[in-house]
């Protein structure tokens, strides 16, 4: 039984909260000014006191591990690296606790604010009464790059422009909550709030249970319901997709997490197409209708035809589909308009006018220079007020006040006078502090809270919780994740016991059994195919390199060892069977380059990087294990260039590890992926790549004057991973006929060429659209030609020759298949991944 009264438990209290230095100048979320623990923190503190400091530390570690296992990350954008670096998401296990009555008033205030913002948006994109009556300065609309003129007059379902809204809140020293920024375009972070809840409730289950915390699932269920209701004419089974800007977006991981939780397919602009004013998803089996788009792509990037024409993230023709009422987009396009802090100054008046109420939560003091009086105030206080662009205010976190020299101030004043409407100044908020994790117990850290709301039948519902961000140190008031801040869960306490709810099973009702997942978008099929090809390329390269390193000794450099040259040739290193000087010029460092040089095409490192990139694109379609295997592989190979201290033996060890990782990858793919199209394309990619590499190596081996030398044949068996099979089958030294039979024609050997081709034929038969045609498709034609030629071979012919093996029938067929396999790959791409690049057609200039 949980206790309802706080018993003074002195010793552990000293452990955790002793030295909690209440900062006198700030509001603290847990302690009164008299340094007494506030009642709503009591149960939580009691629960963690019971755990004690050591246990809490252990729990924090488990919290970190859980995040890592879930693969929750955040992309940090460097100056040189647009792709960003994935950083683990930092979660402080100590939640921010909010009392029930406090929450009720916050919730009411934010519902009012969302309603107000929606009403203003409806007016700006509709009648524009507010401008005509001069309640809203026209410059706030007309001068904003976020006012999307082509969207004027497009009415969203239920006139809900703002479907999903977030507000950033901070609490000043007097205990008053302030809105520091409004997120009206594509509010981010709800997925992180969910992840925080997941890890915190698992790390501190006792505290979570005893505190009666409101669940988050209800909010996400409301989101699902309200998004489904946006579908206009297809009420039955609407398809909602989650439109992402792609893996390079800062919060891609969060988007993927959220999409998975909500059960929506994560799509990019290029996965969608507009035909006859309807939006469709491009899948392997054709176009499938889309009814609702929940987007994370910025307003003006959504339709290159009518908005920014340089955007590659959008869907051309989307606006026309919206006008036709065939699709709904949440949030409506153009909602970024009210993200500008310049609007804040007008909210109290607009609230009175539009809702007939007082604005319930104030905004942080803002002066927009487009107003004469505000401009005067800003110009007189340039030394004190941070001035920033009034529009496209994308970094709302308070930054340290920049120290301006007198000359800089003068230049700024001049720019403000020239185009005053482009500037605004905002008061810096002193954030409140809340107990946060520290190595020696709980410490006060500045926090800010982001709260989310969703529109539901014309009203708004708030998530009972939110994303609390924590500054990195006590003095700091910067909350940006880009600058090393952390986040924590937000516990809104309930006065009644809370009902447990999860989205993972449908509430009540029967569940339809499904054997096939949602149809695969062509772009993902493309990625799976290349994932297979690169995985096999890495495997083949590692095998060749291992073969080379294990034979490469200082005495052997001059090409004295026959097996070395076909290996080096296949690795595209000068092998020189005629030219021993060239062979001598291949040094161990050249081999290292094939391992580590990221800029060398086909190097193991470059291939592993490519694998990791593809795995990122497929993140929401593959297991976390698969992702970890490939990330670990890439990390291991991303060693610094200085490999001078490494020995050939180290290389063999590293290559063995690489091959093990790749075997793990194949095992996961084979045992854990359903036999749907994703797996099929992955396997086809692997088979094609394996055939290409095998043929390339066999071609070089047969071209060697020592092709019949047992040591070369040993190498063939080794590269084809068939040594054990051979030894089990023939108790004799390798011989041309038997070796080539095993690696070419033995259909029980999963490494033989025939086995690859047979598998490809089976895959082809199951591809969508391949069976309906009377005539074979171009890809099938290529495959059948190769298969027929291969089947008619008799490798024993090789034994009858003394030299010139490359010119034999076997040699010719190997060359033929080596040439044909890339054509097969192209044919598959043309049939299934044909979402060729989109370009824009400019008109001619006016002359």
């Amino acid at each position, binding site marked *: 039984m949980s206790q309802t009264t706080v018993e003074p438990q002195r010793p552990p209290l000293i452990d955790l909260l002793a030295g909690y230095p209440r900062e006198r100048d700030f509001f603290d979320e847990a302690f009164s000014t008299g340094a007494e623990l506030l009642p709503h923190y009591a149960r939580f503190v009691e629960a963690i006191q019971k755990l004690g400091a050591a246990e809490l530390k252990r729990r924090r570690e488990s919290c970190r591990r859980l995040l890592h296992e879930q693969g929750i990350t955040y992309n940090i954008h460097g100056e040189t690296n647009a792709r960003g670096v994935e950083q683990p998401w930092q979660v402080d296990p100590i939640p921010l606790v909010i009392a029930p009555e406090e929450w009720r008033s916050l919730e009411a205030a934010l519902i009012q604010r969302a309603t107000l913002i929606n009403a203003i948006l409806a007016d700006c994109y509709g009648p524009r009464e507010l401008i005509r009556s001069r309640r809203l300065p026209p410059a706030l609309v007309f001068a904003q790059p976020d006012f999307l*003129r082509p969207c004027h007059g497009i009415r969203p379902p239920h006139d809900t422009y703002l479907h999903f809204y977030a507000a950033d809140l901070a609490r000043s020293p007097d205990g008053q909550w302030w809105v520091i920024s409004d997120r009206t375009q594509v509010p981010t972070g709800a997925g992180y709030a969910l992840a925080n809840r997941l890890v915190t409730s698992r790390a501190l289950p006792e505290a979570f249970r005893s505190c009666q915390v409101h669940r988050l699932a209800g909010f996400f269920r409301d989101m699902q319901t309200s998004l489904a209701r946006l579908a206009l004419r297809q009420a039955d089974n609407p398809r909602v997709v989650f439109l992402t800007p792609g893996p390079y977006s800062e919060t891609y991981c969060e988007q993927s997490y959220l999409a998975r939780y909500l059960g929506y397919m994560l799509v990019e602009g290029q996965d969608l197409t507009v035909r006859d004013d309807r939006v469709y998803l491009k899948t392997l089996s054709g176009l499938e209708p889309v009814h609702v788009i929940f987007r994370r792509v910025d307003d003006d990037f959504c339709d290159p035809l009518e908005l920014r024409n340089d955007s590659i993230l959008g869907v051309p023709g989307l606006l026309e589909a919206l006008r036709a009422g065939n699709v709904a987009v949440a949030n409506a396009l153009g909602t970024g308009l009210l993200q500008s802090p310049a609007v804040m100054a007008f909210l109290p008046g607009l609230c009175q006018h539009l809702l007939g109420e007082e604005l319930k939560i104030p905004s942080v003091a803002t002066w927009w220079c487009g107003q004469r009086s505000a401009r005067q105030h800003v110009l007189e206080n340039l030394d004190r007020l941070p001035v920033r662009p009034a529009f496209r205010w994308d970094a709302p976190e308070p930054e340290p006040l920049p120290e301006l020299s007198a000359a800089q101030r003068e230049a700024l004043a001049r720019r403000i006078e020239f185009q005053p409407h482009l500037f605004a100044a905002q008061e810096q908020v002193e954030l409140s502090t809340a107990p946060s994790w520290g190595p020696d117990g709980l410490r006060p850290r500045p926090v800010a809270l982001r709260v989310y709301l969703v529109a539901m039948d014309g009203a708004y519902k708030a998530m009972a919780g939110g994303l609390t961000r924590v500054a990195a140190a006590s003095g700091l008031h910067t909350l940006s994740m880009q600058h090393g801040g952390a986040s924590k869960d937000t516990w809104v306490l309930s006065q009644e016991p809370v009902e447990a709810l999860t989205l993972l099973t449908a509430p009540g009702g029967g569940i339809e059994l499904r054997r096939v997942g949602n149809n695969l978008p062509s772009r993902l099929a493309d990625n799976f195919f290349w994932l297979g090809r690169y995985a096999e390329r890495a495997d083949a390269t590692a095998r060749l390199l291992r073969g080379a390193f294990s034979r490469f000794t200082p005495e052997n450099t001059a090409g004295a060892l026959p097996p070395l040259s076909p290996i080096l040739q296949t690795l595209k290193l000068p092998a020189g069977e005629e030219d021993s000087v060239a062979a001598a010029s291949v040094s161990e460092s050249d081999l290292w380059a094939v391992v580590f040089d990221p800029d060398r095409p086909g190097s193991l490192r470059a291939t592993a990087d490519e694998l990791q990139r593809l795995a990122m694109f497929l993140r929401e379609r593959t297991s976390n294990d698969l992702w970890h295997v490939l990330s670990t592989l890439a990390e291991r190979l991303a060693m610094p260039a200085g490999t001078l201290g490494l020995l050939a033996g180290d290389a063999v060890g590293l290559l063995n590890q690489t091959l093990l990782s790749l075997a793990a990858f194949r095992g996961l793919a084979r045992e854990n992926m359903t036999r749907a199209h994703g797996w099929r394309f992955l396997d086809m990619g692997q088979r094609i790549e394996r055939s290409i590499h095998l043929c390339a190596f066999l071609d070089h081996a047969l071209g060697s004057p020592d092709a019949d030398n047992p040591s070369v044949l040993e190498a063939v068996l080794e590269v084809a991973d068939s040594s054990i099979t051979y030894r089990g089958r023939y108790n004799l030294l390798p011989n041309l006929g038997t070796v080539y039979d095993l690696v070419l024609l033995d259909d029980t050997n999963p490494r033989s060429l025939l086995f690859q081709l047979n598998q490809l034929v089976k895959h082809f038969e199951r591809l969508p659209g391949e069976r309906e045609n009377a005539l074979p498709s171009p890809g099938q034609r290529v495959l059948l030609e190769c298969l027929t030629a291969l089947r008619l071979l008799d490798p024993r012919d090789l034994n009858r020759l003394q030299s010139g093996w490359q010119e034999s029938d076997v040699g010719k067929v190997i060359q033929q298949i080596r040439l044909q396999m890339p054509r097969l790959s192209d044919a598959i791409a043309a049939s299934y991944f044909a979402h*060729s690049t*989109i*370009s824009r057609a*400019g*008109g001619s200039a006016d002359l």
Partner: protein
Amino acid sequence: MTFDVVHRTLYRYSQPVTVSQHAARVEPRALAGQIVADFSLRIEPAPTLRKTRDDYFGNRVCFFSIHEVHSRLEIVARSRLTIAAVTPPVLSLSPPWEKVVELFSDPVSPEVVEPYEFVFDSPLLRASETLAAYAQPSFPAGTPLLSAVLDLNRRIHADFKYDRVATTVATPLEEVMEKRRGVCQDFAHLAIACLRSLGLAARYVSGYLRTRPPEGKPRLVGADASHAWFSVFCPELGWVDFDPTNNLLPESDHLTLGFGRDFGDVSPISGILTGGGKHDVKAAVTVSVL
């Protein structure tokens, strides 16, 4: 006077286009003094879907998409327009330019809320102190607005050389200022950005010129392609057109297609293609007197 306009645009693609979506703004809008008697638009290959409506600025826009594989696209717009000759306003009777700027300052005067849209930066045009400084000699204190604009129009014509190869659709204004060369689009943009830098409202007008001049008059520059000029807002008179490329005030030889904040709002044809590789475009305009 009645004119027949034929505006032909031909695209050729180096690789087949599988899907294309276009927006064409090639239908002249009806205006006081401009009657659109007839209009037809031929598109080849025939679009799967085609719709015409008014855009945000009230210009006619035709959206069309083609879903068959094609490697050329031809768009032919034919219009018959009747133009009533405008009597140019008496420029010197317009209000002093500073009074007009004053109307646009905070709080905005109710009568200029509509033109207020054209005071601010637009996607292709940014106000700057350099541009304000360039315009300044035409705007001595107290000068009537339209007299000052006429002088700016004249100076642009005198200072800049018409050159079809110096710039492209995408050349920024800074580069035009530096090279002192360009085409009608650049000159109209320059004038608009100068006027906005002073706090005035100006807009971009796209249209056509008659191809063959009346007896005894020189042929106008830009007559065999689509043309562009600008309009400035003057209280009571409304929008007044100026053509810096030909250093004149349009009377009856300028046929208006539409207007917007800059070229981007009225670009005659813009499109998004799937496939297509490289493309080349040829446009030809013939304006004949009926």
